[in-house]
C-alpha cells in the first residue's frame, strides 16, 4: 500500500509540474470564456432584426403602444394588412421590415396557448431580440388579461413585479421547457467534459504504460512492486492529475463568473456608436446574462459537483484500467491503435447516446444507459440537472464501481503478462489467453 502511494506521488508530480499541464490548465478556461463571450456577442449583435411589423388581426392590441428595445435592436411598427406587406416583401429586395408578428384574428386571451402568435422572418433572430419580443408580448398579454379581470393598475404593478422575478417565457409551460433546455445544455456540457477528460486522460495512461515498456524500466519496477500496484498507482496518479485540472478549471471559472463577467457587464463592449443614448449596461443586455446566471443558480451545483467527481473518478478508474491493459499489451504506438478501438468505442457510443438521452431524460434509454457501467460515467452526471431519482444515481454508482473492479481484475491479468512481452505483435486472441492463464 505504501508503494502504491509512492507510485501515485511520482505519477502525479511529474505530470503536474510539466509546462503542458500548467498551460492547458490556464488556457482552457480562457478559451472557454473567449468562446462564451464570443457567442454572446455574436448572439447579441449579429441580430439583424431591427424593424418589426405588428399585424394585429385580432384588434386586441389596437390601443396598445409598443416600446422599442432600449438599444435599438428592435423597432416596432404597427401595420394593417399582412397580405399587402407580404406581396411588397416579395417584390422588393429592400424590405421595409425584417420580421412580421402576426396576431391571428381568433387569438384568445383566455387561452393564449391554443392559438399562437406568429413571428415571420427570413433572417435568423438573435437571442436578445427574441427575448425582448417575447417579453414585450407576454407583458402586453398580461396587461390585457389583467384589464379583462378588472385588476387595477396598482394590483397589476404588484403582479408584474412578481412576474418579472420569475420571468422565463410566455407561459408556465414555456418556462418549464426553457428550464429543460438549460438543463439539457448543462447536461450536455457535463457529458462532453467527461467524454473529453476520459479520452485525454485515458490516452495519457496508455502512453505512460507504453513509455515504461519501451523505456525498459518496467522490469526494474516489477521486481520491486507488484504489477497490479504499478497499474493502480499509475491510474490513480493520473486520475488525481485530471481531477486537479478539473478543480482548477472550476475555480478559475467561478472566479471569472464572479469577477470577470460583472466587469464585462459594466464595460461597453459594443464597438458601434450607441443609438438614442442607450446606457452601456443596456448595451450589453444584462437581462440575458441575468437569465443565464439565474438559470445556473436554479441548479444545485454542490450535489452536481459531488456526483460529477464520483462518476468522473469511477469512469476514469474503469476506462483507465482498460487503457493501461491496452498500453501493456501493445508494443508500440501503431500496434496499440488497433487495440485501442474497442476501448474507445463505448466512450464514443456513450457520447452519441447522450444526445438522445438528454432529449428524453426520463425515458427508458436514459435509465438503461445510466446503469450500464461503460456509459454511466458520461450519462449519469449529464442527467443530474434533470433531478433523477436517488435510487437510480446510487444503483448507477454501485454498478460503475463494481464494473471498475471487474475491469481492473481483467486488466491486471493482461497488464501482468503484457508488460514483459516484447517484439511480438499482440492479438486479441493472445490477450484472451493471458486473461485465462494461471497465475
Amino acid at each position, binding site marked *: 500500500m505504501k508503494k502504491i502511494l509512492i507510485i501515485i506521488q511520482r505519477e502525479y508530480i511529474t505530470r503536474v509540474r510539466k509546462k503542458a499541464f500548467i498551460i492547458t490548465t490556464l488556457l482552457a478556461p480562457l478559451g472557454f470564456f473567449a468562446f462564451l463571450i464570443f457567442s454572446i456577442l455574436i448572439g447579441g449583435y449579429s441580430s439583424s432584426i431591427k424593424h418589426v411589423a405588428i399585424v394585429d388581426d385580432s384588434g386586441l392590441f389596437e390601443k396598445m403602444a409598443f416600446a422599442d428595445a432600449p438599444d435599438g435592436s428592435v423597432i416596432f411598427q404597427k401595420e394593417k394588412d399582412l397580405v399587402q406587406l407580404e406581396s411588397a416583401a416579395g417584390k422588393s429586395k429592400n424590405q421595409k421590415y425584417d420580421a412580421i408578428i402576426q396576431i391571428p384574428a381568433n387569438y384568445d386571451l383566455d387561452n393564449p396557448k391554443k392559438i399562437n402568435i406568429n413571428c415571420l422572418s427570413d433572417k435568423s433572430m438573435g437571442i436578445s431580440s427574441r427575448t425582448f419580443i417575447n417579453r414585450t408580448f407576454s407583458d402586453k398579454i398580461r396587461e390585457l388579461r389583467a384589464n379583462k379581470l378588472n385588476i387595477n393598475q396598482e394590483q397589476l404593478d404588484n403582479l408584474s413585479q412578481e412576474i418579472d422575478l420569475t420571468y422565463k417565457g410566455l407561459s408556465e409551460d414555456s418556462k418549464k421547457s426553457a428550464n429543460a433546455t438549460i438543463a439539457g445544455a448543462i447536461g450536455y456540457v457535463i457529458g462532453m467534459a467527461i467524454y473529453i477528460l476520459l479520452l485525454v486522460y485515458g490516452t495519457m495512461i496508455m502512453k505512460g504504460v507504453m513509455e515504461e515498456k519501451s*523505456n525498459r524500466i518496467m522490469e526494474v519496477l*516489477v521486481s520491486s512492486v507488484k504489477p497490479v500496484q504499478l497499474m493502480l498507482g499509475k491510474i490513480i496518479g493520473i486520475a488525481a492529475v485530471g481531477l486537479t485540472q478539473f478543480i482548477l478549471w472550476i475555480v478559475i471559472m467561478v472566479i471569472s463568473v464572479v469577477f470577470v463577467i460583472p466587469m464585462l457587464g459594466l464595460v461597453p463592449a459594443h464597438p458601434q456608436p450607441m443609438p438614442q443614448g442607450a446606457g452601456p449596461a443596456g448595451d450589453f443586455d444584462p437581462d440575458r446574462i441575468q437569465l443565464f446566471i439565474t438559470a445556473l443558480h436554479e441548479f444545485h451545483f454542490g450535489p452536481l459537483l459531488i456526483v460529477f467527481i464520483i462518476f468522473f473518478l469511477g469512469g476514469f478508474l474503469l476506462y483507465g484500467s482498460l487503457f493501461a491493459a491496452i498500453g501493456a499489451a501493445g508494443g508500440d504506438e501503431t500496434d496499440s491503435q488497433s487495440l485501442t478501438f474497442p476501448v474507445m468505442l463505448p466512450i464514443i457510443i456513450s457520447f452519441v447516446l447522450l444526445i438522445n438521452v438528454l432529449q428524453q431524460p426520463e425515458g427508458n434509454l436514459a435509465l438503461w444507459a445510466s446503469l450500464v457501467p461503460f456509459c454511466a460515467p458520461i450519462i449519469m452526471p449529464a442527467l443530474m440537472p434533470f433531478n433523477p431519482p436517488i435510487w437510480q444515481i446510487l444503483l448507477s454508482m454501485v454498478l460503475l464501481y463494481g464494473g471498475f473492479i471487474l475491469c481492473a481484475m481483467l486488466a491486471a491479468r493482461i497488464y501482468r503478462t503484457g508488460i514483459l512481452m516484447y517484439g511480438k505483435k499482440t492479438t486479441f486472441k493472445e490477450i484472451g489467453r493471458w486473461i485465462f492463464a494461471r497465475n
Partner: protein
Amino acid sequence: MNQLSISHIEKKYGDYVASADVSFDIPRGAIFGLLGPNGAGKTTLIRMITRIIFPDRGTILFGGEPLRESHTNRIGYMPEERGLYKTMKVYEHLIYLARLKDLTASQTSAKVNYWIDKFDIGGWKQKKIEELSKGMAQKVQFIATVIHDPELLILDEPFSGLDPINAKLIEDEIHYLKQQGKTIIFSTHRMEQVEEICDEIVLINKGHKILNGGVTALKQEFKENKFRIQYEGRLTDQFASQFEVLAQKQGETIVQAHASANAILKYFIDHDIAVKGYYEILPSLNEIFIKAVNGATPASKPIST
C-alpha cells in the same frame, strides 16, 4: 547455508517449456553464474526468483524460507532489458527506486549520496536521464540495483553495452560486494566473461538444467588429459610414435595423455630437452557447455571443438 534453493521448478507458456524441473542451490556469499545460450530460460528463472512471475510447480527458498513478497526488498535485480525514466533527474530517480524498495525517506537520501560520491557522478545529480551517456546511465542503473543494500544481487547480462572501463568498475564493485558477504547471480550467455568471476555455475539449455557445480570441479570433471609443453630444442621422431600428438609447432606441442602425464615429462628429461612450460589444458566453460549439451541431447549434431 544457501541463499537460494531452487527445487523442481517448472514453468510453461502454453506448449513452450521455459523451465523443466530445474533444481540447484546458490550458497550464501558466492558469485554464481546462471549460464546458457539465448532462450535457455535464464530470464524466466530470474523472474521467478524476483517474483515477477510464478512457477507452475516447485519451490524456491530464500535464506531457508519460502520466497515471499517481503523478500523482494532484499533482492537487487538489474534486468537485461533495463532502462530508466528519461525525463526524471538522476537524483530523484534514484530516490524513487530506493523508496520502492521500502527504504525510508531519510535512509534513502543518505544512500543515494553515498553511491553518487562513490561513482563520482555528483555533477550529474540534477541532470535528466536522457542527457546522460550510455555508460553514465548504466552506472545509475547499477546504483539503483544496489541502493537498498540487497543480500542477493541478480545481474542479467551486466556487461552488455559497457565499455571496458565501466565493465571494470562494475566488476570491482561486484568483488567488493562479495567481500561484504552478498550473494551475486550472474546471468549471461557469454561464458568466457564470467569464467574467472564465478565460484559456481548452473548451465541450462532449453529449460533444462545441464550442469551444476563449482567452476574448478567442473573443469576437472570435463578435462580431457591434454597437456601443452613448451620446450627448447628438437623432438625426435620417436615422440610422435610414443605419444598421441594433437598439435605441433616450433617449440610447443599438445599431447593427449593416456596413462600418467608424467610419462610425457619423463621423455623430455630423458632426451634432455629443456622444458619451458608444462600445462594441463582445462576446458573453457564454453567447451564444457557444448560438450554437455551434446551429451544431454544426443539427437543434435556433434559440434567439433
